[in-house]
C-alpha cells in the first residue's frame, strides 16, 4: 500500500527546507519544529494551506514569508475547505492540460482550534467527500495565538485563560475530544498520531498520508512553552514524555484498522516502562494547581482516565496483554 521510503538523518538534514527559518515563532515552539519536519517528508510539488493560527501568523507577515512552497491562508475554520478547493482545481486543470505537473500534493495545516472546534465541520465534509489531501493537526492544546484559551483539545485539568484554575474550579473540567478516533469513524483510509521526538515515525506517517489515495489525517503533538508554562528547552522532551506516559499514544489506522506504532508498542509490551502521568504534568505550569492538596484528587483522575483510554486503544489494536501502571 505504501512505498518503501528509506532515509537517514543525514538525508533529511540535507533535504532543502520548505518551511524556512526567520519566522517569528517563540523559542521552543513545538508547532514550528513539527512544520519543518513535515515539510521534509513531501514527495514532490506540494501546495500547503493553513488555518488562521500561530503558524499562519508567525510565518506570513507581509511582505515576508517562511514558505518556500505555494501557500494559502483564507480563514480560521477553512483549512479543509481550502484543501478541497485546491485539490479539485488541480484535478480538473490537469485534465484540461492547464497545468504541467503530473502530481501536486495538498497539505492542510491547522491547530487544535481550527480542527477540534471551529474547523471540524469543513474537515468532516471534506473527508466525507473523499478529497485527496493530508490534513495535519498540530495540537498545542489551546488557542495559543489569542492568548491560551481552552479548546476541545485542551486536556482535563489544564489551566487556560478561559478555564483558569481558581479557588473553586481546578482548570478545565472537560476531557480532550478524541479527535483522531472521530476521524477514523469517518471511514477514511489513513489516520495516525505522531510526536516530534519520534521524528522518524512522524516523517514516515506524513509520507504515508500523502501517498494514500483520498483523505488522510495526522494528529501531531506539539508542545507550546508559552501556553503550557513549560521550559522552552524541554519541548521535545515533553513530546517524548507524552508518549511514555501514554497520554499521547502513537498509532496508525489504515482503513480503520488500528495498529500501535513502535514507540508506543514498547509501553504495551513492557508495561513497566510506562511512566506515571505525574512526571509529564509536574513539569508544566498549566497543571501546577494539581500538585496542591486542594486539587490533587484530579491527578488520580487523570491517571485513571489515561489508563482506561490506553487499555481501550490496546484492545482496538488487538493487544490483549493488560498493561500495568509502572
Amino acid at each position, binding site marked *: 500500500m505504501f512505498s518503501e521510503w528509506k532515509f537517514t538523518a543525514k538525508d533529511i538534514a540535507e533535504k532543502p527546507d520548505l518551511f524556512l527559518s526567520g519566522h517569528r515563532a517563540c523559542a521552543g515552539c513545538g508547532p514550528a519544529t513539527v512544520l519543518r519536519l513535515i515539510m521534509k517528508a513531501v514527495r514532490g510539488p506540494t501546495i500547503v494551506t493553513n488555518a488562521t493560527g500561530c503558524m499562519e501568523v508567525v510565518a506570513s507577515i*507581509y511582505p515576508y514569508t517562511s514558505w518556500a512552497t505555494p501557500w494559502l491562508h483564507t480563514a480560521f475554520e477553512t483549512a479543509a475547505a481550502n484543501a478541497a478547493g485546491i485539490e479539485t482545481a488541480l484535478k480538473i486543470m490537469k485534465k484540461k492540460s492547464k497545468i504541467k505537473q503530473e502530481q*501536486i500534493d495538498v497539505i492542510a495545516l491547522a491547530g487544535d482550534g481550527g480542527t477540534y472546534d471551529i474547523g471540524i465541520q469543513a474537515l468532516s*465534509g471534506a473527508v466525507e467527500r473523499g478529497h485527496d489531501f493530508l490534513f495535519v493537526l498540530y495540537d498545542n492544546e489551546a488557542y495559543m495565538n489569542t492568548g491560551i484559551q481552552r479548546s476541545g483539545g485542551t486536556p482535563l485539568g489544564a489551566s487556560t485563560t478561559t478555564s483558569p484554575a481558581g479557588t473553586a474550579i481546578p482548570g478545565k473540567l472537560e476531557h480532550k475530544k478524541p479527535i483522531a478516533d472521530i476521524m477514523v469513524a469517518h471511514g477514511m483510509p489513513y489516520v495516525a498520531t505522531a510526536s516530534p521526538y519520534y521524528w522518524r515515525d512522524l516523517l514516515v506517517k506524513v509520507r504515508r498520508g500523502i501517498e494514500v489515495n483520498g483523505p488522510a489525517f495526522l494528529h501531531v503533538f506539539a508542545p507550546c512553552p508559552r501556553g503550557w508554562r513549560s521550559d522552552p528547552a524541554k519541548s521535545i522532551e515533553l513530546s517524548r514524555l507524552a508518549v511514555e506516559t501514554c497520554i499521547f499514544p502513537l498509532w496508525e489506522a489504515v482503513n480503520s484498522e488500528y495498529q500501535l506504532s513502535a514507540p508506543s508498542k514498547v509501553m504495551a509490551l513492557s508495561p513497566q516502562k510506562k511512566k506515571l502521568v505525574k512526571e509529564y504534568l509536574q513539569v508544566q505550569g498549566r497543571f501546577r494547581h494539581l500538585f496542591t492538596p486542594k486539587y490533587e484528587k484530579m491527578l488520580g483522575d487523570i491517571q485513571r482516565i489515561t489508563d482506561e483510554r490506553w487499555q481501550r486503544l490496546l484492545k482496538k489494536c488487538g493487544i490483549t496483554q493488560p498493561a500495568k501502571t509502572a
Partner: protein
Amino acid sequence: MKSVVKQEVLALNGDEAVAYAVKQSDVDVVAAYPITPQTIIVEKFSEYVANGEVETEFVCTESEHSALTACLAASATGARAFTASASAGLALMHEMLFVTSGCRAPVVMAIANRALSAPLNIHGDHSDTMAQRDSGWIQMYVENAQEAYDSIIQAFRIAENLHVLLPVIVGLDGFTLSHTLENVQTLSDEAVKKFVGTRQFPKVMSHEGKTVPFRLDPENPMSMGPIALPNYYFEFKRQQEEAMRNALSVIQHVNEEFGKISGRSYGDGLLDPYMLDDAEIAVVCLGSTAGTVKAVVNELRADGVKAGVLRMRTFRPLPVDGIVDALRKVKAVAVMDRSMSFGGSGGPVFHEVRHALYDLPAHPYIVNYIYGLGGRDTSPTQIRQIFEDLRGIVQTKRVESSVKYVGLRE
C-alpha cells in the same frame, strides 16, 4: 444591434438560464450548497455533470461557507470558479465574501435574491445582497431570465479582467425570476467559450523577487492570503477600491462587446434608463420590478405624463456619474428599495441615489419607497400611485414623508 451569431431560443427559468450560462463558460470548479430559490441552479448543473455535458468538477459542500471557500481556493490555484446561493446561505458566507475579494479571487456567484430570517421567508427581496454591500464584490441585478443568462457570461469577463480581479455577484429576484419560465436566446457553446476566453493571470513579484503569475504554482512559490499589519493592510484595501473604480469602464466595455455578438446590451452596462431623456418624474429601481415600472411608464406616456425609469443594473461599483447625468433634469425621483436599513434614513439604494445627487446645484426632490419585502407582490396600480405621488410633489413643491412603504398594513 444585430446579432452576428446564430442563437437558439430555449424555454428556461432564471435559475436554469444561469446554469446554462455556467455550462457554456468553460468553468473549472463549481462548489455549492442547495438553498431555495437557488437550488435549481445546482440541480441543473449536477445534471450536466451526471450526463458528461461539462468539463467541470462539481463539489457539493457541507455548507455555503465551505462552498465559497472551495471556490476561493480553486480560484487561487488558477481555476475558473462559480457558486450560487441566496438568503441565509449568503449570510453564512459573509466572512468569506471579504476574504474572496481581499484575495482578489475572480469568483462568480449567482444569488437568487431572497428575504432573510426571522421570520423565515423563502420569497424574493434584496435583503440578502444588500447586507453584503460592503464586502468588496461587484453587484449586478438583472431584470429577466435573458439578462441572467447574458450577465453570468459577462461576469466572468468582468471578474477576470486584469484591471479588476474582483468577485462578482449576479442577483436575480427569487421566484419572480428564478422560477419563472421565459424564452431565452442562447448563444452557441463556441461563441460563449470564445467570448469568455481563458483565464489570464496578472504578473506579480514573489517573495523570491521573481515576476510570476498570481496563482498557487509549485514552480513559482507564492504565499497568498498572508497577515498584513497596520504598515501594509490599508494599501491592500485602497487597491481593492481602485479595482472597483476600474470595473466601471470594464463593465461598460463588456456590455458593449457582448452586444456585438448577441445583439443584446443593457443600457451602458451600469445603468439602464428608459424614457428618461425628457422625463420630469422618474423611478429608480433594481431587478425585475423595472419591468412593471416600464409598463406603467408606457401607460403614463400615452396619457402625456413625462415619466421615466432608471434601472440600476450595477449597484457596486456605484455608477455615481451616470446617476447624476441620468437624473439631473428630473424634477422628482422615487427610489425603490426592496430591503431595509433598520434605523437608517431609508433603504440602501435611496441612500446612494440621494448622496449621488447631493452635489448638484439644484437637485430633484428624492423620496424613498420600501416595497416587496418577503416576496410581497407589487402591482402596476401601486407603481402608478408612486408616480402620482411624484406629480403631487412637483406641483406642491412639498415632500410630506421621504420614506414610504408600498402595500403595507399599518
